């Protein structure tokens, strides 16, 4: 813990990153600078700066309570940061609500699953963005047929089966619910996907399908910020890994440059180095 606090890496983004975003013709898709958020006296995130480019997968890792969920909540408009700035394609943004972020092209799956137990599967999948037709050409009305058909297609894509679409979702298993939450992402064409432990409740096959999906989306040019405790998944798909400890960014490393051991070291000891000589300090 003391190591993490001694280390300056959490305040200053590495020079490589800063250089990249300035030299490139385009500004990075998302960049956050000096983000802070406290709950009462507890500083859940403390001066975090991070950039995500178009078409890359950034994994966000860290121990329980490191502040990962808090960080993504400030990015997706669910929480207002106390300090710091968020830039989308170089332009400062200030999301007052999750809807503002969604409208700006940021889609999020939350850790606690954003499902409403009492609603049916299609009602959940389309919550907040219902398909509508017009009754008598005038009054907006749910297009249930279309919503059900699309839902069926989405669920088939993930290979999960749900007994019937008309039941309230509280009768479904954790993994089925998780998949429904994830399938919401595919309804729009986001430029940034944020996923908080998307694979946590999933079986082997379902988890693999989600990983494939994330990789496909990345290849289509979508940026992905994914929280995961599963380093195997992280090393499989992530381009870069950002490590958070006690609310501070320990460092951001390229997956190809690090070993799993040094990432574990960063997570547990807060050592922001990939230099073997320094990790055994």
């Amino acid at each position, binding site marked *: 813990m003391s190591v993490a606090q001694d280390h300056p890496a959490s305040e200053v983004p590495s020079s490589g990153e800063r250089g990249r975003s300035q030299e490139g013709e385009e500004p990075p898709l998302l960049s956050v600078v000096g983000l802070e958020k406290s709950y009462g006296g507890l500083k859940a995130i403390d001066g975090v700066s991070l950039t995500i480019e178009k078409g890359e997968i950034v994994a966000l890792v860290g121990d329980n309570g490191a502040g990962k969920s808090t960080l993504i909540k400030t990015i997706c408009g669910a929480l207002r940061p106390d300090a710091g700035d968020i830039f989308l394609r170089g332009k400062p943004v200030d999301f007052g609500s*999750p809807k503002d972020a969604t409208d700006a092209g940021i889609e999020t799956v939350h850790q606690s699953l*954003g499902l*409403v*137990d*009492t*609603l049916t599967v299609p009602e959940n999948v389309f919550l907040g963005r219902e398909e509508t037709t017009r009754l008598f050409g005038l009054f907006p009305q749910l297009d249930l047929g279309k919503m059900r058909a699309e839902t069926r297609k989405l669920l088939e894509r993930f290979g*999960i089966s749900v007994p*019937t679409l008309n*039941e309230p979702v509280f009768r479904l298993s954790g993994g089925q619910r998780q998949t429904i939450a994830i399938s919401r992402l595919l309804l729009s064409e986001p430029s940034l996907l944020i996923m908080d432990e998307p694979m946590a409740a999933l079986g082997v096959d379902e988890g693999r399908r989600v990983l494939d999906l994330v990789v496909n989306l990345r290849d289509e040019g979508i940026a992905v910020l994914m929280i995961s405790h599963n380093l195997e998944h992280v090393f499989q798909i992530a381009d870069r890994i950002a490590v958070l400890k006690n609310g501070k960014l320990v460092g951001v490393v390229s997956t190809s440059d690090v070993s799993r051991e040094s990432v574990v070291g960063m997570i547990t000891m807060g050592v922001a180095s990939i230099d073997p000589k320094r990790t055994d300090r």
Partner: protein
Amino acid sequence: MTETIAGDTVGGAKLIGTADRRFPLDGLGLTLVIVALGVIFTLINPRFASVDNFLNILTQASTYIIVAMGMTFVIAKAGIDLSVGSMLALVTCVFFGFIDDGMAWGLALVIMFALGALLGAFNGILVAFLAVPALIATLGTMVAYRGLALLHSSGKLYYGLPLEIVWLGQGHIFGIPVPVVIAAVFVAFSWWLFNRTPFGVHCRAVGGNREAARLSGIRVSRIEVLVYTFSGICVTIGGLIWMARIDGTQATFGTAMEIHVIAATIIGGTSLFGGRGTIYGTLAGAILLTMLNNALVIAGVEFFWQLVAIGVIVVIAVTVNNIRENRITWLETLRVRRNQARNRSVARGSIA
């Protein structure tokens, strides 16, 4: 009310057993109770079964049905509106005041509806933007709106409406009382709004899981204000029929109306915990309560005992709902123990 569409099974999974499909039974069970009660009342007093009495019950129920439609939305949103009776008194008194001042009834009607919407919206603003719990907010406005009605009318008993308005309460369309026609149309509209529009889904979403609704991009405060506004509009329509039916109003009218309306909604199966509701159930609940009232009046039971009866019915209805939703933990424990005991004895039997 629920439809099972062909090909509803995704990926070939089996359907959940039909015994598990409790929700659609709400309305059906209640309908059976209504029919059973009807038979019993008829056996006791043959006059009960007449078409006239039936239409009479529906006419009496019409205001409650319409106000209870609004209450269904409010309760499904995990709120409550105690101010409906006071709102009814206030909007009808204000309407009558304008009529007495010689205002054209059309204009007075517009003002009445605007006022109803405003009073409802005020409830919504208290709940959504000042975070006052709905129970307290509407308890406050229940008293305040009643006070305003008393102030406005200074205890006056209003009477003498334009004939066009009286027709809304006392007229007939093809032999059916106008209040019944209005209530029927309004129930159909409410069913559509509740089950088939984004607004309906959003109400249920906010009631079922406020945070999930917010994270899904729903503007929760907006829904909250709209839902109470809708309740205010329902009260205005209900009040219009009410005053037209008796051709008069008074600041004390609609006292204890909230009890009847909330009772009808809950008996119908709308969950006080929010997230789901049934329009048909509310309709059945309102009819059931009016029927009971009607029977008690015919039987010559005192008004005070009628209140006691309604109180008892509400408690029974909530308990039945809780049993159905497995909310009563000691009952559930008892059931599990009994099953375990039975399984054990079966196992012993097979060993023996």
